[in-house]
């Protein structure tokens, strides 16, 4: 009985926290902003889902412990009710007392939204009941076996994602003569009830079928003779390449623009990963290399820059890479003796110094001060490329995509090869214990400089492509947020993991582009995501195998069927 008493105590304290989280989401205005987006028309909006996520997730967490069914469900219900009481009380309070001069986002529309367009007292009761129900549902999710839970969660995520993609999917479906599908799926805003059910079913069935199909496929491949296996690998790779090459055509111009940003940040993150993930040097001034890559490219290729030489991009590129590598050495050399936090602070300073140098009046004759450098020619010298046979017209983002893809692939290959070589191991050893690494024979000075130079070379590629893509460079672009974002990508994806970098870039760069409402709350969401990651999955979404072992040794024995890469509802928010 003592066990269930402590579970109830835990439910109450978690409920208080959950309520506070919900209030916070409401008070910063993110919930109302997202309530403009219908997930299922007339039924639920994204804002409502966002507010529902905390009690759901907390109910799941609190009910995961324990053996008896009833106390676990009661704990979930209690937790939801406690959080509901907090929200209801806040609603009543805000309706009675005007606190808008303190919390500017608590507007009448927000209160109306929170009260479900009812009277405040009825709204409060509704909130209480809803939160309690959500807590209970979360608890039920924890109680049911994972073969039920997993399809349900996947289905819900599927519905949310498809509805979020509506503005992009609809025009693309029309372009591909699939208006029927489009009309079935989407009302003018959001999914219809029928299409939501269909989408849910497709995703749920998919999540059941997919592991089986994959297992059977893997077993077949494993049973095949080596020659066939090599063929299968080759065909898979070929299909992947064809897909990546055709992607801008499928995605269309706007999504290609998003892909270009994702590609840029993937490239930057691949470079920073060498410095932070492999060598363990926490560099917060990585934006400097991005800036150097951009400015050098602009100087060398723009006919109206101060140099005015107007070199073709591919001729300028080796000089840009060399220049960035030298910058890496310059920034690396003074910080050789610094470790950990000190290194982070000093590199942070260097990043700002780089930006201020490009901005400065003293260097205006070269870098153009606030006006930057204009007239950077497109990457291939022409703004439009026609692909024969396929009839593609590549221009703007659909054109920039290809060199970016090329650079990303090169950077990923370089990073992988370094990682599994003498150099990568020496970096890892340095990250683990610098003194011992040195006593074992690693020349730490050289290896630190090498990490900075190689990281810089990869990062400058991003800058180079960026300059040609915008046809100009401005110092304002290269602020500290770039460094922070790139670091967040690495942390989210998983330190030292290359697939993780791609996933991290898709999540942190791609998602905000798709959800315009995000823009205002981007940093808040980044912060929240990072905190959640550190708590729930410190090794990142797609971790390096070794690093996963490092952080999850203990849990593995506890729950063998731990949810793989599936996002919890809380992370989705």
């Amino acid at each position: 009985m003592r066990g269930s008493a402590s579970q109830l105590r835990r439910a109450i304290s978690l409920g208080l926290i959950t309520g506070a989280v919900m209030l916070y989401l409401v008070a910063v205005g993110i919930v109302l902003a997202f309530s403009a987006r219908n997930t299922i028309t007339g039924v639920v909006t994204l804002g409502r889902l966002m507010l529902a996520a905390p009690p759901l997730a907390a109910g799941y967490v609190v009910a995961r412990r324990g053996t008896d069914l009833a106390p676990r469900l009661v704990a979930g219900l209690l937790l939801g009710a406690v959080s509901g009481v907090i929200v209801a009380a806040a609603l009543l309070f805000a309706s009675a007392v005007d606190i808008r001069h303190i919390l500017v986002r608590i507007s009448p529309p927000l209160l109306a939204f929170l009260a479900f367009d009812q009277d405040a007292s009825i709204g409060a009761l509704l909130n209480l009941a809803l939160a309690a129900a959500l807590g209970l549902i979360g608890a039920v999710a924890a109680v049911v076996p994972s073969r039920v839970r997993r399809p349900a969660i996947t289905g819900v995520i599927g519905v949310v994602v498809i509805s979020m993609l509506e503005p992009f999917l609809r025009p693309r479906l029309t372009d591909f003569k699939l208006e029927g599908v489009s009309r079935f799926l989407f009302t003018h805003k959001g999914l219809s009830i029928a299409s939501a059910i269909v989408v849910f079913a497709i995703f749920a069935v998919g999540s059941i079928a997919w592991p089986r199909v994959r297992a059977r496929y893997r077993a077949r491949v494993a049973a095949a003779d080596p020659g066939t296996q090599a063929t299968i690998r080759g065909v898979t790779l070929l299909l992947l390449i064809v897909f990546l090459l055709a992607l801008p055509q499928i995605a269309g111009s706007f999504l290609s623009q998003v892909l270009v940003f994702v590609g840029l940040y993937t490239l930057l993150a691949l470079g920073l990963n060498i410095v932070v993930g492999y060598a363990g040097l926490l560099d917060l001034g990585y934006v400097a290399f991005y800036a150097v890559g951009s400015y050098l490219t602009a100087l060398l290729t723009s006919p109206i820059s101060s140099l005015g030489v107007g070199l073709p991009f591919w001729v300028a590129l080796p000089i840009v890479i060399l220049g960035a590598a030298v910058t890496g050495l310059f920034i690396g050399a003074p910080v050789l003796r610094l470790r950990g936090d000190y290194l982070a602070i000093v590199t942070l300073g260097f990043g700002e110094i780089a930006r201020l140098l490009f901005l400065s009046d003293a260097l205006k004759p070269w870098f153009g001060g606030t006006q930057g450098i204009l007239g950077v020619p497109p990457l291939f010298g022409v703004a439009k490329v026609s692909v024969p046979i396929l009839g593609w017209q590549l221009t703007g983002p659909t054109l920039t995509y290809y060199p970016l893809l090329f650079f990303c692939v090169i950077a990923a290959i370089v990073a992988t090869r370094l990682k599994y070589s003498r150099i990568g191991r020496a970096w890892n050893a340095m990250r683990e214990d610098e003194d011992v690494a040195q006593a074992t024979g690693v020349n730490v000075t050289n290896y630190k400089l090498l990490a900075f130079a190689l990281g810089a070379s990869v990062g400058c590629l991003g800058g180079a492509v960026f300059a040609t893509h915008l046809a100009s460079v401005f110092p304002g672009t290269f602020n500290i947020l770039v460094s922070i974002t790139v670091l967040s990508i690495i942390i989210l994806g998983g330190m030292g993991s290359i697939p993780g970098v791609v996933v991290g870039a898709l999540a942190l760069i791609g998602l905000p582009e798709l959800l315009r409402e995000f823009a205002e709350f981007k940093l808040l969401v980044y912060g929240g995501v990072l905190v959640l990651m550190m708590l729930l999955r410190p090794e990142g979404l797609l971790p390096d195998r070794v690093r996963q072992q490092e952080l999850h040794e203990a849990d593995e024995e506890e729950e063998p069927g731990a949810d793989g890469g599936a996002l919890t509802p809380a992370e989705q928010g």
Partner: protein
Amino acid sequence: METHAIDPQAMMGDEGGARLLLEAHKVTKQFEGLTANRDIDFDIPRNAIVAIIGPNGAGKTTFFNQLTGIYAPTSGSISFDGVDITGMQPHEVAELGIARTYQNIRLFQNMTAIANVQVGRHVRMRGQWFHAIFGTPSIRREEEEVLQRARELLELVGLRRRTENELAKNLSYGDQRRLEVARALASDPKLLLLDEPTAGMNPGETRQMTDFIGRLRRELRLTILLIEHDMKVVMGVSERITVLDYGEKIAEGEPAEIRANPRVIEAYLGKQATA
């Protein structure tokens, strides 16, 4: 790297050189007024097992750290295998052929066992970053050889095959000690420095370790320097013992002489007797 198997010839270095592998002359180390080592003369003959003992704070580890380049001596000189290594960087000393283990095991905790040994091999590898990036045949061959060699070393120190992909920190205490020795051996050292290799071990494990030290000398023809706190360990295995106390050398000789030396008894054994 020329050899695949654990070939004694590869590890013993140049036998034709002087009789002494290491010579330290009047080594003094001062830390802001505190003299940790004063005028220490010390040498190690080739293929010998010698030990430095002394009570806590006697300056043993400071001396060790000067041999491996972690500290530069305030005055005096150290030469190793005919090369003056006074004031050299640790990685340079490692490359010349001095490898060490640590009193409180210092492995690369979050790397696998095999990767720890591979890092130990670092100084004998030639692959550079550009080789790695382009995946040249030479670096592939080298990597294969190193993997092979690392596996042999794990076997030599008695680590089971399935532990090779375990993280170092997840190994048992005894296995971590073994892994540290394997990492040190991977660089084909001429001189192996063992800092309290039996610390934290029970009598059975301690005997195993001392047997293993003897085997290393015999089979790999290594020269070994032990630092020990526990007199009993060094008495059995080493042929010469140097005793430090308050940063100075107070005695040197065969185990039997040391045991009988009144100054040692006063400084060291006396302390133990009262403890």
